[in-house]
């Protein structure tokens, strides 16, 4: 696999679309306005964090309650230990039920388990029906953002894509683009045998799955086809509907700046006798895939995440990169801690290194995940994999700073040398890893006299 830095260099060489900066900045501003207009925002964030912390601390019990209640409501519950088990269960279900077409609601966990590829190779057409997901699926790309999968594409690119892939006349009018997708998808909604969704929250008290969307595609996918498969990350439980209400207060505000998403669905089991619509079967697939391994460690805090994308929107690194260079379906600040924690630090240790630790993410997180602390902890765990020259420099500096006399002597020497080496007090080109600095900026040379020497000379010791 390429390194994160290589993927970044590649992205910069190709040019990162400006729509990423504009789109994430715009959503962040909406979040700021929504929070300002909601006096209880900070209190709700505290309550949301408490709910998530309590659920994660008693996850076994909460999941057990959720599964029992879901089964009582007529759902079939399957616990998948990993991505393979989850894929196999769904593919097998499709095969048994002779499913040829599945319509999908946007869902990060189905991206995580790479479900579409598995369905396609089993001969099942899997169609993304969220507009953004539909666009990136046509383009053969993964989503670039939790909430705005096609954030990296402007309408002109989408217009070209629709012409090439759907054979329609060119239009770059957003309303017409939306109508093209709608006309294309409508018959597919009505003929699909299976609808696949994620789960924003599973309610332990009654086994409901809560789904929030803004396009109404979620309702069609979960009511029109005869089978509904809801795929849920194992951490996404809340104890009661009252707890769900708290989570919804912070979710949409953090994600898009809305008070509430346009559609909030609570699906409690399949269609009951006498009900006019809804699926005959509802399968809830609960995915572990590395999550339970974090329980009991500091990394368990990643399980509080509700995938609102607020941290992506505010992150200066994300704004300059977009989602794809992260190399994982989970991008942005939370992705830098979720990906190594779920999929292994060995392959992903360069993600936590790529942060200035500015803390903007923690400032907006609806459940106040201390992302900077988690990043530092992952760096600590992978410190032996850091660049050898950087490691040696840090160790040398640390050992000098614990010997104050020697430190004073060497800083005095550096002051002399810096003056010889620099021009007008600045250094333009440095060797080794410091060259990474001077590639882009000048570095001030040490001043002719250190502060401690000045103090000793002027104030005496």
């Amino acid at each position, binding site marked *: 696999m390429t390194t994160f830095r290589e993927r*970044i260099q590649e992205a910069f060489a190709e040019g990162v679309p400006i729509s990423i900066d504009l789109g994430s900045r715009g959503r962040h501003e909406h979040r700021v306005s929504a929070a300002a207009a909601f006096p209880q925002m900070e209190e709700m964030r505290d309550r949301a964090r408490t709910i998530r912390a309590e659920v994660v601390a008693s996850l076994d019990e909460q999941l057990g309650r959720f599964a029992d209640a879901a089964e009582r409501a007529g759902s079939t519950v399957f616990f998948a230990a990993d991505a393979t088990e989850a894929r196999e269960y769904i593919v097998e279900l499709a095969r048994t039920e002779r499913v040829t077409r599945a319509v999908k609601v946007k869902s990060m966990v189905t991206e995580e388990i790479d479900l579409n590829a598995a369905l396609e190779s089993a001969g099942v057409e899997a169609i993304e029906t969220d507009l953004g997901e539909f666009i990136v699926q046509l383009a053969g790309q993964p989503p670039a953002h939790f909430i705005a999968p096609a954030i990296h594409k402007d309408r002109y690119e989408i217009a070209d894509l629709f012409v090439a892939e759907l054979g329609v006349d060119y239009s770059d009018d957003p309303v017409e683009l939306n109508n093209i997708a709608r006309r294309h998808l409508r018959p597919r909604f009505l003929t699909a045998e299976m609808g696949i969704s994620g789960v924003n929250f599973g309610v332990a008290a009654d086994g409901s799955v809560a789904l929030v969307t803004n396009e109404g595609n979620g309702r069609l996918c979960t009511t029109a086809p005869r089978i509904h498969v809801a795929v849920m990350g194992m951490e996404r439980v809340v104890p009661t509907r009252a707890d769900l209400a708290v989570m919804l207060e912070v979710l949409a505000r953090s994600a898009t700046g809305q008070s509430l998403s346009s559609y909030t669905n609570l699906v409690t089991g399949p269609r009951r006798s006498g009900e006019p619509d809804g699926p005959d079967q509802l399968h809830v697939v609960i995915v572990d895939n590395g999550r339970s391994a974090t329980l009991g460690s500091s990394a368990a805090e990643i399980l509080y995440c509700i995938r609102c994308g607020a941290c992506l929107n505010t992150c200066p690194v994300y704004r*300059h990169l977009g989602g794809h260079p992260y190399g994982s379906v989970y991008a942005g600040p939370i992705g830098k801690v979720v990906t190594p924690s779920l999929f292994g630090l060995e392959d992903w240790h360069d993600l936590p290194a*790529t942060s200035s630790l500015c803390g903007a993410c923690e400032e907006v997180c609806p459940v106040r995940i201390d992302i900077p602390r988690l990043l530092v902890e992952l*760096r*600590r765990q992978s410190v032996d994999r850091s660049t050898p020259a950087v490691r040696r420099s840090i160790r040398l500096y640390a050992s000098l700073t614990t010997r104050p006399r020697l430190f*004073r002597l060497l800083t005095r020497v550096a002051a002399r040398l810096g003056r010889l080496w620099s021009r007008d007090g*600045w250094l333009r080109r440095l060797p080794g890893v410091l060259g990474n600095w001077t590639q882009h900026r000048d570095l001030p040379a040490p001043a002719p006299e250190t502060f401690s020497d*000045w103090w000793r000379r002027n104030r005496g010791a």
Partner: protein
Amino acid sequence: MPVQLFVTCLVNSLYPDVGKATVALLERAGFHVEFPMDQTCCGQPAYNGGYHNEAIDQARQTLDVLDVTKGPIVVPSGSCAAMLIHHVPELVAAEPGYAAKATRVAARTRELTQFLVEEAGIDIRPVRCALATYHASCHGLRWLGVVAEPKTLLDDAGVERVELDGEDECCGFGGLFSINVPEVSAAMMDTKLDRIEASGADIVTGVDVACLMHIGGGLRRRGIPIAVKHIAEVLAGDPE
């Protein structure tokens, strides 16, 4: 009343004038400034990089030097102050004898502008200064809540000031981040520099020399004659 100056390793070697200006401001406020000679580095670069064994050694050295002194410990850096206040106590929690020292030192440590506004209540002298803009450094802002204090002080000193668009967005320094992932760091810096240029200011100021070193190094590479000064230098006026 005595105050201890923890000057930070960057100021000591690269920006001694910031240390001198800090002394001038504190003395003007009537404090007796002391400088514990054996101070070196708080360990923040090592801590942030994940090199915690090394950071613990540095934290112990710093705590040994500071804990035997009296009075507030004033730091002309939001970042290093946040290290002493928040991260050092966590870091040495399991080190015999150091947990208590860290708690005591953390309780005495203050970022310079917060100290000047909250404790000192000094009359800030008017200074002559070109049109300035303020960059809010991340660690002071988000770990210590340094928001209004620097602007209050600048305004009290009669410094003409323009707001910086996106003042609370990271300049891209991030310590080892600037070395480990220079492309992203530089892209963030470029956004910051574009905004500084667009502000029309003649001087950029802030509470952390690390960020200012990054911004200043970038401006110099661009050949843009915008001055970069730590807020202590702006407030102290011309040093002796």
